[in-house]
């Protein structure tokens, strides 16, 4: 087990009830945190506590419970704003997750600002959730989508980046960390370059939030989206950060309760101010509370410590995996976080995944919702092991032993 400095991974593991589970007679080795991280007891308890003692609808009751629920809910907005260093709490909009956040930006800012003749720029690294919302809008508004290509190692091709920015795009949509290759993009620099040609920037932070301290003021991006369940919080909840000046200009998206100022059949209906303008309907209240607990948990452990722990595991795992005959790591960018994608020559990734599951080892296989990367690399998919605060060196050893065993059977 790894114990570097004051980082006690065993103590951390004890906070995650699910990690005690057995799968197919083997202790669970959970290496799929990039798909969804497990939750510490404090998050599970916070949600339960909310449902058991504080639940009511928010913002609209005068009774005590409504006030308590509203306070619990709004305090998390402040917590997120502080956590990512937003200028004001009103810049945080609750969404159902990253996908929802990107669809919101495409559906409001995009719909209002993108037209025929316009270009937007994505990267080949993007998750389908940062591609398809733009494609759907593009079929209607007929703007062009240009793609920043990759280097062999999975980092962004600098000349391709410059070439695409020279097209004066109106929007640049880019991931902070690639879910498939682990590439960390220098989003601060990309944002500055994009701003210099007048583009608005949205950063998909879903894979960055569990591994890095996020400072949206420093990055200076216009929008930043993330999901709760990637950062040890509940699923079905996430947030969108947007610069207040942009949020004010953006038209509403979904209509409903809470997002209005006044509704009338005789006069035009008027809308609430941000963030409420974009939060129609009753949100996932216990999810918000759980997300708040997840941020507290991350801060109690310390993101820097978690990142250092994960980095040492990735380095160790890369070295051990490379000892396997025919092993090829997919994605070896100098700046990398959280995931190792690999292939073994002559073996289909799904076969390795199936056999690893037989040994209680949870990895992800397939295209990881990034088909454009697979197409470019000419591969059917990869096996992806992803690491989190609770991952251990012993789990890496189990993975390597499992892959060795699988390869022996499959060859």
């Amino acid at each position: 087990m790894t114990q570097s400095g004051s980082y006690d991974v065993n103590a951390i593991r004890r906070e995650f009830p699910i990690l005690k589970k057995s799968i197919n007679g083997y202790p669970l080795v959970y290496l799929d945190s990039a798909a969804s991280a497990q939750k510490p007891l404090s998050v599970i308890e916070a949600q339960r506590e909310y449902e058991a003692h504080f639940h009511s609808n928010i913002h609209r009751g005068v009774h005590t419970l409504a006030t308590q629920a509203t306070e619990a809910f709004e305090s998390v907005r402040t917590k997120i704003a502080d956590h990512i260093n937003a200028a004001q709490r009103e810049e945080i909009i609750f969404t159902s997750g990253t996908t929802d956040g990107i669809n919101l930006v495409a559906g409001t800012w995009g719909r209002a600002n993108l037209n025929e003749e316009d270009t937007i720029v994505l990267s080949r690294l993007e998750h389908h959730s940062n591609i398809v919302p733009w494609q759907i809008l593009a079929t209607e508004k007929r703007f062009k989508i240009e793609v920043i290509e990759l280097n062999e190692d999975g980092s962004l091709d600098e000349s391709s980046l410059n070439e695409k920015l020279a097209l004066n795009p109106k929007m640049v949509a880019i991931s902070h960390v690639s879910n498939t290759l682990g590439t960390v993009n220098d989003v601060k620099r990309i944002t500055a370059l994009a701003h210099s040609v007048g583009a608005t920037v949205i950063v998909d932070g879903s894979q960055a939030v569990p591994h890095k301290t996020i400072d949206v003021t420093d990055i200076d991006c216009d929008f930043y989206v993330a999901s709760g369940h990637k950062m040890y919080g509940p699923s079905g909840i996430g947030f969108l950060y947007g610069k207040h000046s942009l949020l004010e200009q953006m038209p509403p998206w979904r209509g409903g309760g809470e997002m209005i100022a006044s509704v009338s059949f005789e006069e035009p209906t008027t809308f609430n101010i941000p963030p409420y303008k974009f939060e129609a309907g009753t949100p996932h209240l216990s999810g918000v509370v759980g997300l708040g607990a997840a941020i507290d948990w991350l801060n109690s452990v310390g993101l820097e410590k978690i990142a250092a722990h994960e980095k040492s595991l990735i380095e160790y795992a890369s070295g051990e995996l490379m000892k396997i005959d025919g092993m090829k790591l997919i994605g070896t960018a100098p700046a990398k976080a959280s995931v190792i994608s690999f292939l073994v020559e002559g073996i289909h990734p799904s076969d390795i995944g199936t056999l690893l599951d037989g040994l209680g080892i949870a990895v992800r296989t397939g295209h990881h919702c990034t088909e454009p990367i697979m197409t470019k690399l000419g591969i059917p998919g990869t096996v992806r092991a992803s690491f989190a605060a609770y991952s251990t060196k012993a789990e890496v050893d189990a993975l390597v032993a499992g892959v060795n065993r699988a390869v022996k059977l499959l060859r």
Partner: protein
Amino acid sequence: MNTDTRLELRQREIIEEFEMFSDWMEKYEHIIEIGKELDPISEEHKVDDNLIKGCQSRVWLHAELNSEGIVIFTADSDAIITKGLVALMIRVLSDAEPLEIAKTELHFLEAIGLNSHLSPTRSNGLLSMVKQMKMYGIAFSAR
């Protein structure tokens, strides 16, 4: 022999065959062997028209009705475990009359503990393949 029980017997044979394996890895080892032994599909049938697209592994399935009214399936997959499972399906459903194929309840995967491979979320193309085999049975029996 009653034709209704012929495919049932084939299923029971597979269930018995798997009874000797105590753990998952042994079962998979056997499936891998079966996959490796599957008669190859002819290249002319390994085409996109015969592709059953799963999320992860690809499966090609070809069906022919011979002059005796018997359906012969041939198939392939780019993943060996999927191919082994495909081979098991073929062992049960190929070389059978169209109506038998259409009517047969496939229960052997559940009996050998591999039913999860047929779940709609598994996305290995196997569930689509079984549906497709049944469709061939129905289509050929209508001729």
